[in-house]
């Protein structure tokens, strides 16, 4: 049968260059609250971090481990609604609500993963399509719980010792910190024994099994981790906007997130940075552009996904190596 994804590249070893580059990037990103001309652009910076969490965790699942999920938006929404409902209707603290979101999402992932990840092939992709649609319908339909099509209102902001973290510059710092920690964790994970095991599973599950890797357990674990990070992103999103509405978490969002992973480059650590940047700018561009530009966007997507192997991150890496060899 046709392989679902391209075999992963062998893990590159660049010593501690990755950690240094990440530290540098995060130091630069820290300047944004002082550079951003207004609160709106500042909160777009926070959205960038949330999108980065979504796309980087999906990249871990699809790009590194080779398992295609089409329900990233569903876990994003499940996290947002779980934390939102617990805090807005049951008086939980947003911190506890976020923790609950990070438990509920991986649980849902394990329930979906147990029957489907045991099998090879398209079953996870298909089951996650179903999951996303069902959750979308529930987000709209369970009006008493979720507020229905009008969305869930009254979600409180984070606060720390009496300090309101809902203010854009403070929330930015929170998202900066949380996302930085997750990205550092992902960097270490991809270079660890478990990260190499994931790449081995993507390249050949039978080969991986023969080398003593517990394939099924690794697949379940990475799917649950991906869902937990998506749940975290969802909780952050809910407490940032104090409001969530069902259309944010549609199946089409899941597909777009997958496209963003592809645009950045499957299995490239820096790929999701490009993906998240485009994904964050996209709604703004869509608002400014109209008819003709949708055409250009579609065409650009075909070119990058189809004809730039390794995505933007891969293209950049090639440019750099060409520059070095000169």
């Amino acid at each position, binding site marked *: 049968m046709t392989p679902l994804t391209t075999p992963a590249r062998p893990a590159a070893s660049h010593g501690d260059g990755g950690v240094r580059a990440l530290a540098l990037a995060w130091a630069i990103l820290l300047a944004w609250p002082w550079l951003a001309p207004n609160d709106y652009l500042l909160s777009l910076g926070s959205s960038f971090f949330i999108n980065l969490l979504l796309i980087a965790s999906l990249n871990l699942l699809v790009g590194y481990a080779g398992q295609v999920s089409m329900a990233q938006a569903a876990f994003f929404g499940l996290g947002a609604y779980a934390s939102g409902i617990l805090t807005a209707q049951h008086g939980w603290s947003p911190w506890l609500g976020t923790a609950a979101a990070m438990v509920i999402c991986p649980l849902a992932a394990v329930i979906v993963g147990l029957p489907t990840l045991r099998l090879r092939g398209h079953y996870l992709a298909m089951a996650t399509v*179903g999951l996303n*649609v069902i959750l979308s319908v529930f987000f709209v339909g369970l009006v008493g719980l979720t507020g229905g099509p009008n969305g869930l209102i009254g979600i409180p902001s984070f606060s720390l010792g009496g300090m309101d973290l809902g203010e854009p510059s403070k929330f930015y710092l929170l998202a900066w910190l949380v996302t930085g920690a997750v990205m550092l964790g992902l960097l270490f994970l991809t270079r660890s024994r478990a990260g190499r095991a994931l790449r081995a599973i993507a390249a050949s599950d039978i080969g991986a099994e023969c080398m003593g890797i517990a394939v099924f357990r690794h697949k379940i674990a990475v799917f649950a981790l991906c869902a937990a990070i998506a749940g975290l992103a969802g909780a952050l999103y809910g407490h940032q906007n104090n409001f969530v509405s069902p259309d944010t978490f549609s*199946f089409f969002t899941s597909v777009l997130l997958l496209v963003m992973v592809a645009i950045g480059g499957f299995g490239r650590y820096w790929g999701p940075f490009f993906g998240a940047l485009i994904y964050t700018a996209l709604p703004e561009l869509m608002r400014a552009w109209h008819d*003709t530009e949708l055409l250009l966007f*579609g065409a650009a997507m*075909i070119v990058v996904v189809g004809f730039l192997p390794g995505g933007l991150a891969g293209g950049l890496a090639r440019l750099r190596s060409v520059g070095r060899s000169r």
Partner: protein
Amino acid sequence: MTIDPALLQIVFSGLGTGSIYALIAVGFNIIFKSTGALNFAQGDWVMMGGLLAALAFHRGDVPVWLACLVATLAVALAGWLSERIVIRPLRQRVALTITLVSVGLSLVSKSLVMLTLGKNPQGFPGLSGDRMIPVLGATVNLQTLWILALTLVLMLATHLFFGHTRLGTAMRAAAANPEAAALVGISNRRIVTVSFILAAGVGGVAGAIITPMTLMSYDSGAMLGFKGFSAAMLGGLGNLYGAAVGGLLLGLLEALVGGYLTSQFKDAAAFFLLLVILVLRPQGLMGRAEITKV
């Protein structure tokens, strides 16, 4: 025995939309079989079929059947062009790449239609006008009967094509084992091209015959494609008879839940059934288990 006319009415309408879902599902399956990819442009081909038929009918001043035929051929041509321009040159023709590229293809098709044909919903009269006829106490739109009949004919044609023609058998061989098929001289590239033409053509017909019932606009493609995709999964992805069963079942279920229970959870019921089936029988209702445990 008497049948409740209200129930009969619902059943007819469910079978009508179900037939359309079945046709879209057939299109999905044809491309899935030849490439392993989920084609997100399938729904947009359906939309193009409807809008091009409306264009041919209103501007070209031709009879409805001719407008539908012209639209179908035009959409098949669009499918061929998509394959030649976008899919064939791909450097990595793996399933996931084709799937994601088809999202871009869908956006491009949608915006091209919007730019050339406008944003207004279009419609045209049915194949025998907009007549309603009584059937066993229920009043049924004649177009529904046309849809049922044409779907039956198309399903039979698909069955004969894949079972009894040289090209159809070659396509099945390539789907079963591309390398072995290539060894006996079946060009995989050609098979993929043919599958895009066929899938687009089937989608075009579906769009052309449903438009008199529901109207069509440039953004209708996504939902139609999604329903067809669900029907394909329900029946078993890649299984042609499963597409028919899945489509009709999905249409019926939607109509029944919408008619008797709640129209709000109409979609939920259909997809809940889908999830149950995916858990119990991941290969779908009619799919043969091609399951390998790892």
